[in-house]
């Protein structure tokens, strides 16, 4: 009677809140549709940088410095076969044509060299204004430079310079303005400043040309931020469209960060399409081939629809959704399909679908909660991409779980019964392998010991999907034209006005000259300091040149020059400049300084930034940070950004890991029955995690900011498989091994299909995630199938031994099955 009543109850049981399912679904779909109407995708690798981290601060400074938004167009004269040669026929004409056809909506300015014809006049202007540009230490030398003997030596030197071939052309102009040679220090500093920047270029015909001929570059300032995908696409397409303007035999290379953005975006879009297609076809084939039931397609639809809905929901919570995160949808689909799969398999094996759902609800929910626990951990990350992944995956898994438990049974009115032909039951398999399982538990321990060398790869460039030919063109450019400032770090000094920023740069330059352990700082302050500094220097210069000193110098110079035939008024321009009453110059004098300043100053209304370059070494960076890391300033170092990224990723990984582990443990503790099976539940996760770490140490698979995500997902899935196997051990121990673990096998296969669909991805981030998931899930699955049953058996034996119950006592078996505590092993 009691049994009949139980059967009757089973047949009439229906889940509570079932009627709410459809209205709830409609509401969620509506909200998601709203989200889709405002979704914006972002493909910047900056999404992988933690908020508030040093790495993000450095990259932010770099972005605000506008360096990343510049474009270099390299023109190369080739021999027709594409090989560069020294002939420059058509080179300048091609450059001029391209400049005339640039889209001025996107290109704000072409950085051009100062007009050649003005250069001499500008340099003489500098010499006449040397008083306000010379540093205090220069003035200290003046006393010695004006002694009669020093003047004789100096004028002898001038005489020799003027006699040298062509000497009169330039020095003939300079010497009357600078007989003491002190003003030349300014020109020499400008020379050193430009030389230290490391480019090999000459200015001719209004362009920067290579000294060897045959090449030229155009430097463009764009209005398009590198992170703007649509803008970058339009900019690059516009530049590509200029190629027909080139003369025959001229090649044009485009070098800019926008090209990386375009290629990364292109690779991600292509990868997403390929992964979605491959995963769809493979999953459909698997479902229909395995179950031979068209309604199994509903199981497959669940994750797809859930992902689409989740994207819409996430779009409401963020200003830009990382394309990289959307690219992992294939892997998410592989995970999310599991719940429908478990439910579908259960429905096939029970006469009443709702009863089947009730039976399977606990392990399925346990699996979902542990996996969601992983992704909820991601919500506590400081990395925007991780947070988005956490939100999107949690929403996807939750929707898939609810749809599997509530909607799927509703559409599965009748299903074919699964055939039961056990060859080897799960329990028998466990009994046969429990000793082997205990031994196998040592394998993860051994692998962990061999994986102690696992390190995070901090190089974001390894996640860049830019094609090798573009990277080769960049390397070739640097090899041919010089590395420029790429070997230099940059200290940024901000200010609301130009004067404020320039004064801060002056102070930094003075301090850095004393503090830098290696090399010298490069700053515009060396040749063109702030107005305040120039005013102070001009005052000191005037104070030095009192009328008596000027009169004495005039007499002494005339006397010293007589020996070499210098005219009496030879140095009239110099004395005229000394006599001139004037204030410090208010604005940049001419194209020379303005042209140089474009590299050292970034101008925006209310936000000026001055840049001081210095050799990028760890001790220099440390020293400059102490000087520049305040008031919105900072140091941009390519070395430091890698280190900072590693540090922030590790710190974030620890935070995510801690939250995820706590949530997984809680879910596992709450839903695992009996509790003694807990080691069996977590074993696949541990084995999978260790296997991935082992491979990162002993193969080409690297552990980077993207694959860390996959590792944590693998941990969640591992617990999922462990929980399902333990559930099967308790419920279906008597049925065949294959049938008892069918849902786990299908789940693993579908997840691996999702991961495999990412394996051929062009984008390294997706490829890393794909391989990590494949390895991790594979190990977790094999572990749950081959070791967990044996471990369950061993744990049961141990429990009975501790309880004093002899092996083979069947009493506990019946009671355990009834209350869900699991059947003991004989």
């Amino acid at each position: 009677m009691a049994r009949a009543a139980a059967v009757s109850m089973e047949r009439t049981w229906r889940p509570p809140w079932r009627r709410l399912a459809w209205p709830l679904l409609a509401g969620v779909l509506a909200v998601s549709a709203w989200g889709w109407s405002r979704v914006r995708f972002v493909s910047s690798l900056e999404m992988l940088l933690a908020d508030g981290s040093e790495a993000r601060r450095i990259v932010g400074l770099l972005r605000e410095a506008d360096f990343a938004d510049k474009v270099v167009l390299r023109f190369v004269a080739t021999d027709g076969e594409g090989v560069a040669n020294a002939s420059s026929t058509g080179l300048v004409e091609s450059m001029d044509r391209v400049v005339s056809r640039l889209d001025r909506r996107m290109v704000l300015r072409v950085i051009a060299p100062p007009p050649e014809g003005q250069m001499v006049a500008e340099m003489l202007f500098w010499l006449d204004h040397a008083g306000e540009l010379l540093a205090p230490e220069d003035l200290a030398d003046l006393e010695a430079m004006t002694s009669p003997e020093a003047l004789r030596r100096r004028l002898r030197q001038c005489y020799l310079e003027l006699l040298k071939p062509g000497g009169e052309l330039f020095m003939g102009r300079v010497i009357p303005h600078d007989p003491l040679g002190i003003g030349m220090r300014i020109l020499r500093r400008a020379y050193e400043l430009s030389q230290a920047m490391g480019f090999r270029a000459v200015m001719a015909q209004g362009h920067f040309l290579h000294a060897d001929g045959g090449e030229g570059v155009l430097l463009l300032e764009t209005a398009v931020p590198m992170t703007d995908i649509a803008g970058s696409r339009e900019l690059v397409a516009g530049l590509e469209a200029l190629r027909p303007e080139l003369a025959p035999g001229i090649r044009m290379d485009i070098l800019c960060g926008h090209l990386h953005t375009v290629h990364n975006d292109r690779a991600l879009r292509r990868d997403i399409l390929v992964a979605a297609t491959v995963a769809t076809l493979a999953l459909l084939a698997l479902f229909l081939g395995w179950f031979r039931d068209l309604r199994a397609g509903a199981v497959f639809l669940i994750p797809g629809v859930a992902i689409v809905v989740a994207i819409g929901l996430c779009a409401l919570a963020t200003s830009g959704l990382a394309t990289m995160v959307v690219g992992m949808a294939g892997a998410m689909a592989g995970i999310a399909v599991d719940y429908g799969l478990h439910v579908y398999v259960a429905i096939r094996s029970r006469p009443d679908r709702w009863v089947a759902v009730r039976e399977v609800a606990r392990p399925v929910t346990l699996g979902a909660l542990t996996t969601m626990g992983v992704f909820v951990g991601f919500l506590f990350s400081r990395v925007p991409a991780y947070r988005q992944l956490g939100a999107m995956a949690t929403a996807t898994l939750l929707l898939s779980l609810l749809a599997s438990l509530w909607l799927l049974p509703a559409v599965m009115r009748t299903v074919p019964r699964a055939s039961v032909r056990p060859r080897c039951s799960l329990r028998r398999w466990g009994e046969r392998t429990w000793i082997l399982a205990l031994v196998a538990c040592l394998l993860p321990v051994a692998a962990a010991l061999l994986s102690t060398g696992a390190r995070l790869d901090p190089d974001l460039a390894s996640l860049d999907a830019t094609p090798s030919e573009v990277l080769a063109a960049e390397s070739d450019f640097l090899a041919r034209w010089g590395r420029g400032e790429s070997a230099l770090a940059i200290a940024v000094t901000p200010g609301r006005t130009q004067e404020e920023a320039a004064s801060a740069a002056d102070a930094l330059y003075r301090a850095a000259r004393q503090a830098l352990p290696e090399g010298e700082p490069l700053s515009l302050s060396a040749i063109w300091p702030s107005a305040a500094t120039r005013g102070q220097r001009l005052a000191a210069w005037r104070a030095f040149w009192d009328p008596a000193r000027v009169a004495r110098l005039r007499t002494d110079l005339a006397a010293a020059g007589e020996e070499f035939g210098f005219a009496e008024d030879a140095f009239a321009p110099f004395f005229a400049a000394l006599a001139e009453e004037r204030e410090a110059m208010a604005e940049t004098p001419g194209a020379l300084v303005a042209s140089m300043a474009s590299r050292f100053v970034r101008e925006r209304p209310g936000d000026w930034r001055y840049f001081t370059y210095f050799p990028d070494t760890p001790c220099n960076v440390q020293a400059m940070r102490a000087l520049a890391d305040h008031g919105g300033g900072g140091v941009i170092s390519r070395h430091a950004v890698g280190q900072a990224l590693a540090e922030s990723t590790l710190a974030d990984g620890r935070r995510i890991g801690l939250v995820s582990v706590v949530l997984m443990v809680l879910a596992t503790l709450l839903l695992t029955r009996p509790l003694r099976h807990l080691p069996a539940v977590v074993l696949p996760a541990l084995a999978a995690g260790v296997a991935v770490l082992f491979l990162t140490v002993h193969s080409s698979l690297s552990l980077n900011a993207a694959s860390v995500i996959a590792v944590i997902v693998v941990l969640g899935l591992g617990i999922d498989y462990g929980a399902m196997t333990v559930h099967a051990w308790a419920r279906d121990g008597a049925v065949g091994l294959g049938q008892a673990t069918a849902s786990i096998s299908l789940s693993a296969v579908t997840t691996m299909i999702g991961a495999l669909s990412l394996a051929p991805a062009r984008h390294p981030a997706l490829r890393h995630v794909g391989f990590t998931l494949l390895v991790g899930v594979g190990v977790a699955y094999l572990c749950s199938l081959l070791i967990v049953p044996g471990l369950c058996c061993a744990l049961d034996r141990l429990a009975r031994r501790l309880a004093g119950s002899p092996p083979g006592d069947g009493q506990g078996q019946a009671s355990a099955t009834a209350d869900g505590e699991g059947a003991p092993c004989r």
Partner: protein
Amino acid sequence: MLALGRFFAGFRWGGVAVAAGMALALAGVPVWGEEAAVARLRELETQLREVRTVQTDFVQEKRLAVFSRTVTLTGRIALERGERLSWQVATPVRHAMVIQGDRAQLWDEDTDRVQTIDLGANPAFKAMFEQMRAWFSGEYSALAAGYEISVRAEDPLTFAFVPRAGTAMAAMLAEVTVTIAADRRRLSEIAMVEVGGDSNRLRFLNTVLDAPIPEDAWRVPPP
């Protein structure tokens, strides 16, 4: 801006390149209008390429505003076309300059030190000497881009080179005149007038073509 300093450095010796190039490579260029001049220069390129070496004494007169008198220099120039150039001044002070490949060596008696300049690392300097080599090689069509060329006189045949507006040379040089010897294979005189009025006259004497150049000509410091 990228190589501003290098450009400064190039200025100082750039005039050397221009002067020497004009002096040694323009021998025998009978042209009239600019287009005709360029056309004739092209025709003469083949003939001038046949001259392998040039050795000549020179007398240079510098009339500069900074000096109260004309300064006269004497010395000797040697050239292996496309290979080496030697410029040695004997009076009133001794100094020397030898350019070979990507290296320039400079010396003067006051410092008695040899300064070596790597042209590969000094693009502006190299560009100037590349221009000079273009003169030596008879590549006048390339040079004509920077100058307006005309015939100033027929007897002796004299050409005038005026730097085109906007070029660096236009800011310094007003005009260069080149006088060709009667045999039309040698240069007899070159005179430069600067924008400020300074002038510079270079007369070539005892010119020898296609004779072996003694190794002493390439020694820095000179023997």
